[in-house]
């Protein structure tokens, strides 16, 4: 028998399956020192041990059998499961906007993977309608699977191909674009597309889910509905991220691709606009703008696609006592740009100065951002700040560290003239640096304080 029959099994477990001629998806009767077991042999996750065989028993549950306890086993039947989401053709409705969905993988479109035992992106955008039929009331949808990678595997190559694909769709007269995306690096892609796709006449909405769509309480369906609604119907023609506002299934928020950040590892309401308010609130019924000024939807097709990227830019998260060789090694490795993520107002220790000077002399472009996430870099307050500026580190206002990394990479993909680079870095394309921080731009409330507790009780989180 060929290896495929024993999907994921190795070592002792594989040996006994082979010896007893029992295949994955075969019905097996197993005799053990702990009694008899019956069920369908399932594939085993690659990283699990080689001491157990996974069985689905008649009641639908899975159990593992310790191979050391097995005295005999027999295959009594065979039936391979066919996991398939019912696929239906997306209906066309006269009068609804045309929306294009780009599938890139991630939790919004995922299914079980036996290889790793985790969820993988494999649910084709075409199957979405079968799972979320409400989408047909919002728009006329066409889909395209650009690539399928996990969020953490998204990178420069993907940014470039997405930007080009978006340009082509706008050329073809689409009314809005939705990009299904894993959430981990959703905000990196948001920034990249803001820089690469400029002056878009239509909304470009990035959406993901914090709970995979194989869970009944997944946020995927509602996020998709919100995103399609925003892409098809909103007047805001910008690159946006559309995710849950509160953790409750109530409304979503539209965030600017350059001002948003994932702030909790697992909450549904993980994406927050930093240092400003979100663009708009969105439900299945309405879109309520929060910001007064934004780029409006247009009829023309005058989009600028600037698909550039230089992958020799790195980020350095400073810690007390950081040694100069961390910088030296980066410079020696050929890095052309460094985004510092400094403490407080934008600081690193004096010990690093010689390394910074060396890097500057070698033409490395260095910019300062903040570990505090909120607030502005301000290097005039203390001497160390002035010293660093003198040594070539340029403050980036309230640009988020990830955004600064994306932007410098994008700029270095176009030019290596320091003045030009600096000018591009510090001239905001879409609010990656804002002139002012409104009072409601920084709200991190603390539990336990009576008025906060009252607020939490009254308002859905």
């Amino acid at each position, binding site marked *: 028998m060929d290896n495929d029959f024993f999907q994921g099994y190795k070592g002792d477990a594989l040996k006994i399956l082979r010896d007893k001629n029992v295949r994955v998806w075969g019905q097996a009767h197993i005799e053990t020192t702990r009694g008899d077991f019956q069920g369908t042999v399932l594939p085993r996750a690659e990283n699990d041990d080689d001491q157990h065989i996974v069985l689905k028993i008649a009641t639908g549950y899975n159990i593992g059998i*310790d191979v050391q306890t097995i005295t005999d086993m027999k295959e009594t039947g065979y039936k391979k499961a066919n996991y398939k989401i019912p696929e239906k053709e997306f209906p066309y409705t006269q009068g609804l906007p045309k929306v294009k969905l780009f599938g890139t993988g991630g939790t919004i479109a995922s299914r079980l993977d036996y290889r790793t035992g985790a969820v993988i992106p494999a649910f084709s955008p075409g199957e979405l309608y079968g799972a979320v039929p409400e989408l047909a009331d919002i728009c006329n949808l066409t889909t395209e699977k650009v690539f399928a990678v996990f969020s953490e595997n998204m990178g420069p190559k993907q940014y470039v191909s997405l930007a080009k694909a978006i340009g082509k769709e706008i050329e073809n007269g689409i009314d809005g674009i939705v990009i299904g995306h894993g959430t981990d690096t959703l905000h990196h892609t948001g920034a990249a597309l803001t820089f690469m796709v400029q002056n878009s006449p239509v909304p470009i909405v990035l959406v993901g889910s914090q709970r995979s769509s194989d869970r009944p309480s997944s946020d995927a369906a509602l996020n998709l509905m919100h995103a399609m609604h925003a892409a098809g119907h909103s007047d805001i023609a910008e690159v946006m991220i559309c995710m849950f506002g509160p953790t409750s299934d109530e409304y979503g928020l539209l965030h600017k691709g350059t001002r948003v950040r994932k702030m909790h590892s*697992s909450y549904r309401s993980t994406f927050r606009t930093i240092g400003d308010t979100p663009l708009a609130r969105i439900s299945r019924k309405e879109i309520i703008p929060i910001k007064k000024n934004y780029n409006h939807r247009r009829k023309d097709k005058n989009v600028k696609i600037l698909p550039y990227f230089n992958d020799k830019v790195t980020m350095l998260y400073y810690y007390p006592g950081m040694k100069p060789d961390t910088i030296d090694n980066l410079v020696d490795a050929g890095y052309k740009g460094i985004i510092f993520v400094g403490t407080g107002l934008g600081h690193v220790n004096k010990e690093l100065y010689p390394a910074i000077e060396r890097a500057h002399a070698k033409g490395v472009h260095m910019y300062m951002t903040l570990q505090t996430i909120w607030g502005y870099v301000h290097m005039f307050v203390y001497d160390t700040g002035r010293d660093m500026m003198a040594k070539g580190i340029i403050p980036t206002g309230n640009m988020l560290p990830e955004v600064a990394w994306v932007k410098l990479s994008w700029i270095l993909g176009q030019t290596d003239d320091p003045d030009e680079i600096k000018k591009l870095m510090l001239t905001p394309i879409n609010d990656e640096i804002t002139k002012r921080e409104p009072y409601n731009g920084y709200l991190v409330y603390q539990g336990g304080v009576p008025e906060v507790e009252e607020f939490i009780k009254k308002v859905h989180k």
Partner: protein
Amino acid sequence: MVKEKGFNPTKNYNKTKEIIGYVPIQQATQEIYDRIGFMSGLEVHQQLLTKRKLFCNCPAGIYQKPDEYDAEVIRHMRPTLSELGEYDGTALMEFKTRKEIVYHISNDSACTYDIDDTPPFPIDREALEIAIKISLLSKLNVVGEVHITRKQYLDGSIPTGFQRTGIIGIEGEIYLKNKKIRLIQLSLEEDSCREVSDIGHIRVYRTDRLGMPLIETVTYPDFVNPDEVKEGCDYIRFLNRSTGLVRTGIGAGRQDVNVSCRGGSRVEIKGVARTRWIPKLTHNEAFRQWALLHIRKLLNEKIKDKKKWKINHKLINDNEITFTNKSIKNAKAAGLVIVAVNMPGFKTVLSHFTQPGKSFTDEIGDRMKVVACLQKPFMVTSEDINPKLKKNEAKKVAKLLKSEENDAQMVFWAPRDDIKTALETIEERCLMAFDGVPEETRKSFEDGTTIFERVLPGADRMYPDTDSAPIPLEDDYIEKLKLELPEEIIVRYRQLKKWNIPEDTYTYIFSKNLYPLTERIILELKINPVFVGTFIGHRLKFIEGHFKHVKEFNYKIIYAMFKYLLDNKIELELARYMLSVVYEFPKMDFDSVLESIKFRKIPKDEIISRISFLRNKFSEVRLSDKPENEEKWIMGQLYKTAIGNIKLSELSEIISKKTSK
């Protein structure tokens, strides 16, 4: 509505009840159950006594009051595919209800895991260990590796939409007095939320109980009569409690009872809180199915082509029919839409008996309530036991619907958005009647009747939990746990029998896990077993039911009390009088307890010596000459002084001897 003269729903109800052979449970015999093919199995749930919840570090057993909460979260549930690529029927039904689920969260008892904003933490080892011990006691084959499975629940009772659960053992057995019952499996799972309210499209839950470790013991359908089901259920509960590692009290043990009759279907009666309700519930359910099979026969005789069968309906406008019924008037005033429905060929079916006080109409109505979220009252029919429409109104309805002689009609009222679902539900339930008994879960009531709760879920709602790694259970570990097990309930049962302890004490002794105490008192203190058994099974039970419980009281104090009496050479009968004081004031030392019941230590001889004095006294006050009267009177005079100082039986014998002289 269009009625032939003489058709009377009440008569029809009684007639059909007789035809199917319904008898009250008191009159039912094994022959009757064999005739209808009674079959039943159990799913017994038991909370485990652990410090924390199963998949997070919240404390277990902290409860919040219905209106106490710190935050609210809202979720909607959507059906998803099972591992084998199928949708589950229950899930699809729940989705139809369009429920908004509201969770009331208390910071003391729930965290972000409970509300599905944080992935699970590693399983609670304490819970796992208890579950393995109970599996071993239940003679189950313990699995080599526990796999956490997600079992879908779209009713919202768990915020994730699924219950994390894992099988610990399969294929076991327990022994009842006269037979063996086979077990299918035992699983370890997280408990669900407690419902606060369910009105219209909004259902509210509390998250305090959510996530607490729970085991579920599932039996094969080996029970053949209602009493046996109860016996089996008690046995499993006692077995769980014999470990001393499970929670007790209201809600800590709950069971679902599966019932069918011959030709019927598996119906699950959910959440039966007390085992004494089981006999009547299972009895009625078997007969409800038997009645539905009779309805199937009637329908298939009357209606040839089921595939062509469908309802027709009309929305009733204001001016078409003026109803005098108050509920309909109120509904109109509230802006609800009034809908008339014709069910071809369903005459005599609507008023067909199903359960005591219920007919087929309730089968339709209960489903409409759940699936379309209608608020009762929301319907009248042409076969209500107490007609709610005037004759001319009923006629108008039938005419409007172009009903024929053998049709039945319904008028219902609902918000406009719910009408489509309501109509689908009516048609769906009627069509199911052609096939017999739909598989359902049903909610139980104390009077022994049940109502539809949801479609019975199947194996299609299972999905491997991708957030948890499998947990291996090694042989060494299981062998170690085997050494810590108490003996089996059946062994204990036989020992109590051998000691001649009366059987009416067993339930109490097992349910409070007092066997180990009873055994210790008998063996270590060498006290008469019958005395100990009845003292615990009757006296302690009585005291517990009539005196206020204080949390300092521990059953072990009873051992100490007997030991004290033995050490002080006081007759054990005094314990009877001490117990109420000890129960209410467990911290009081025993000397003070004796003082409080006014016990004085008097030598035996002194008490006996008083007999001759009392004999003389009796001759003065005597009411009769009969020696037994003299005996009784003297005993009465000495009783209070005697207790504790001399065995009452001994004293009685001495008096008897002396008076007969």
